[in-house]
Every structure is written in structure tokens, then in C-alpha cells.
């Protein structure tokens, strides 16, 4: 299978926790400005895989990575992790707005925490733009100076998406972003993801097969740390090449 414009290319990527090998020799190209779903049973290394892509994996004591990960043509393992993380944003499983900050400050956290001062006009513009992209602007535009933690779970998660988008990343990693949300909030986030792929590449870990089917263009299937299958979602779902993918998709194991 040919991917023309890969934004991420991994070569023989392995990730370890101490002696335990959580990701085994993964070589894959992730297409730009598409939604790629990372699927597989619990403990198969999905989350570890995306945490390699912004080098958050290495923060776990004893964790390390071997192989190569290219962001376009730069090997991110040779780069300063701080620069990598500016280009590769992340949204977590549970909404995690900063409790000491207002909604406005949360959106600007990527600047404020780095000590970057923005002119008021510029800051206002970034906040409005990011919140609009995250489909949250209309709900919060009158309460921008309240604490982010006052929002509902779904709104908090969209606030976290806005916070990640505000620094204009090229890629947005999402680690089961809807698993802590109710169905309505989940639907809102799904619609948002489909919108966002116009401007940003999205790699999303999900346990939810219908969700992957609805929103993703490509699917990567992991099993026991190995990448078993990668291809257009429609193909992987209807005509899996590997029997293990088929078994997973038909619910034989999870």
C-alpha cells in the first residue's frame, strides 16, 4: 500500500518499559491530514505507540525507544522533545484542563506556560479561533473568565482540544478522547474530528469500533505490541487480511 505524503514514518520502532517490550518493530507511514484510528485489544500498545510520537513515552521511568520516527523528514528522536511536542499536540483520555486557570488562560496555556507574552489583541484572536475550531466558542464566549473546571466533561474535553490547537500543531494525537464522555458529547467530538482533518493530521486511539468506522480514513490494528494490519479503514473493516484482525473486529476477543 502506498502512502504518498506521510507525515509520520516509523522504522523498526520498538518501545520498552524496563525489559518489557511494549511495541515491537513497527514500521508504518501515517498519511497527512487524514484521521488514522489506532485499534486493538487492551494492553496491545496503542497508547504506548502514540505516546512515542510526541516523546511522552520516555517520561515513564525505565521507558525507552529504539528505531526511527520521522516527522516528515526529521527524526524526532534526534530532536529536542519540547520542539516535537509543539508540533505534535495531544488530547488525553480524561479531560485535564488546568484547574487554576480560566477558560481563556487554558486555551493560551501553550504560550503562557512557556512565558510567551502575546499582545492582548493577538491573544484574543488565538483564543477565539481555537475555541471556534473546537466547536466550543458559542457555549463559552460569555464565560471566558470562569475556571475551566466549571464546564461539563464534554466541554472540558473540547477545551483541551482548543488548548492543543492553539499552538497550531501539525498533528493531533488523541488517546481515547471520548471514553469518559456521554454519547451526546462523544458525537460532538466525533463531528469535530472530521472537521479538523482539513487542517491537522489526527491519530486517534479508540476502543470503539463503530467510532473508528465513522471517523477514520485509515486504521492501524495492533496486537501484543505488533502492528498487524494497516490500511484504509473501509478495507480493513470489510476485508481484513489477517485472521487476528478479523477475530477482533467480529468480537472474538477484546
Amino acid at each position, binding site marked *: 500500500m502506498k502512502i504518498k505524503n506521510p507525515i509520520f514514518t516509523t522504522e523498526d520502532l520498538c518501545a520498552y518499559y524496563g525489559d518489557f517490550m511494549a511495541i515491537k518493530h513497527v514500521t508504518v507511514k501515517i498519511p497527512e491530514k487524514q484521521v488514522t484510528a489506532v485499534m486493538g485489544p487492551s494492553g496491545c500498545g496503542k497508547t504506548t505507540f502514540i505516546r512515542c510520537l510526541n516523546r511522552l513515552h520516555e517520561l515513564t521511568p525505565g521507558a525507552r525507544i529504539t528505531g526511527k520516527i520521522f516527522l516528515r523528514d526529521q527524526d524526532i528522536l534526534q530532536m529536542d522533545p519540547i*520542539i516535537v*511536542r*509543539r508540533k505534535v499536540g*495531544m488530547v488525553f483520555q480524561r479531560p*485535564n484542563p*488546568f*484547574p487554576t486557570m480560566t477558560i481563556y488562560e487554558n486555551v493560551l496555556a*501553550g504560550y503562557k506556560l512557556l512565558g510567551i507574552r502575546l499582545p492582548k489583541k493577538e491573544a484574543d484572536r488565538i483564543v477565539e479561533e481555537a475555541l471556534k475550531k473546537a466547536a466550543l466558542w458559542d457555549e463559552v464566549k460569555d464565560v471566558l473568565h470562569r475556571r475551566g473546571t466549571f464546564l461539563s466533561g464534554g466541554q472540558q474535553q473540547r477545551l483541551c482540544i482548543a488548548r492543543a490547537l492553539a499552538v497550531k500543531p501539525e498533528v493531533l494525537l488523541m488517546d481515547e478522547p471520548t471514553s469518559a464522555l456521554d454519547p451526546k458529547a462523544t458525537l460532538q467530538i466525533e463531528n469535530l474530528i472530521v472537521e479538523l482533518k482539513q487542517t491537522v493530521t489526527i491519530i486517534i486511539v479508540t476502543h470503539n469500533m463503530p467510532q473508528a468506522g465513522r471517523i477514520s480514513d485509515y486504521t492501524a490494528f495492533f496486537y501484543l505490541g505488533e502492528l498487524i494490519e494497516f490500511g484504509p479503514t473501509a478495507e480493513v473493516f470489510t476485508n481484513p487480511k489477517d485472521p487476528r484482525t478479523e477475530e477482533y473486529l467480529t468480537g472474538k476477543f477484546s
Partner: protein
Amino acid sequence: MNHAYPARERWRRFKNRFILAAITVLALIPALPLFLILFQLFHKGISSLSLDFFIHLPAPPGESGGGIANAIVGTFIIVGLATLIGVPISILAGIYLSEYGKDTKFAEAVRVCADVLQGVPSIVIGIVAYAWVVRPMGHFSALSGSVALALMMIPVVVRTTEEVLRLVPDILREASLALGVPYWRTVLKVVLPTGMVGVTTGILIAVARIAGETAPLLFTAFGNQFMTLNPLEPMNALPLVIFNYATSPYEDWWQQAWGASIVLVLMVLGLNILSRLLARRIAGER
């Protein structure tokens, strides 16, 4: 009720009530001394409280009247200076233990030392401050008292800071790191502010504890009959007034010692209540 053995049933219920009543009364015992102390203080000391008492300097022996203005000011200066010395060191050490040292042997050793320091008798701390500060300077000073009190304060604030920061959820650290924020900035701008109310509570508790310490001040701040704002001179403090007056031969001074005790106890009580209110606010936010 329909029971086969009504007599036994009644006996059981009686036992239950009797023991419940007994332990309820016993539960009052820890609370009782506080009220007895407050009663005793106000009973003996309320008559010495007057405006003059707060704004005047001590009268010479044999003369009546006079106040403890210098001791009140002195306590604020000595305790304030101790806080200024102790808090920055403690917060940085707490940050180290929680965010950097974690489970390393060095961090573990620091924890043990802090716990042992907390158990060192305050009179010994006073002697150490005497050797470190009073001897080299050649005279008693408020500063030496502050050093002694800071030594008592440090272990308490270090451990509470560490514990509070450990309670800050990791997902907030990761949220910040994932935005490309360096770890040290994450600690200073996310972790510390998130735990700040808890850290403040710890500081207040520590201040309340040292404000009433007498032994470390005896041969450091020493006491002073006059008003001074210079921390390099001997300075009076509330516990010193109480100690010196209560052991003096003058009845007037005994009376003033009671008054000073009320002031000191109310100060410490106020700090404790304030820290409780803050702690409740944290609990409310969770």
C-alpha cells in the same frame, strides 16, 4: 417485637447504650483541656487586657502599668523572619522530593533527616542557633531566634509541600508537557500553583507551631525591655515575656504574663482556624 428471650434482649440493649454513653463521655476528654485552658486564661488574664497593654512598653519593676507592645511587635518580626528564611528553602526541598528525587536513595535520606529534625528538642535547636549565630556575632539577636525557629519550621513545611504536590494528578503534568512546556516550568507554573492552597495551609500550621516556642528563643532573641525593630539586636517576644514575667517576683508581672498568654493563644488559635478553613476549601474543590 417478638423475641424468644426478652430479658436477654433488654440486657443487650442496656449494655449497648451504657458503653456508647461511656465512650461519648471519654471522647470529650481530648476537647476538654482546650476549654479549661481558655477559661483559666480569661479568668486570670482578662483584667490585664486594655488598650495600654497593647500599645505601651513594659514598666520598670515596682511600677505598675505598662504593656507588651514590644513583645507583640517582636513576635511578628522574629516569626516573620523565620518564615522568610524557612519557607523558600522548604518549598524548594519539597519540590525536589516530590518532582525530582522521588524514590531515589538521596530523597529517602532527606526525608528521614527531616523527620528526625522534627523530633529534635527545641532547646537543642536553641543551643545550635546560639553556637551558629550568637557566638559569631558576639551578642544575642532576633535574627538568631529566627534561625532557630526556621530550623523547627523547615521539616514541617518540606513534608507537607511534598505530600501536597504528590497529590497533584499526573495528567496535569502530562497536559503541560504535551504542550511542549519544559519540566521545570511545568513544576513551577502548573504543579506548584495547583498545590498552592495546600502548601499555604502547611506554612500556616508551621507558623502556628513556632509562634509559641520559648526554648529556642531563650538564648537567642533573649528578650528586651525596650522596643526595637532591628533584627540584629536582642528582641522581646510573647513567649519570652510570659516566661520572664511568670518567673519574676512581682505580682504585677504575673498578671501581665496571663494577659500575654491570652494574646499568644489567640494568635496561634487564629492561625490554626485559618489553616483549617483553607484545608476545607481544598476539600471542597476536589
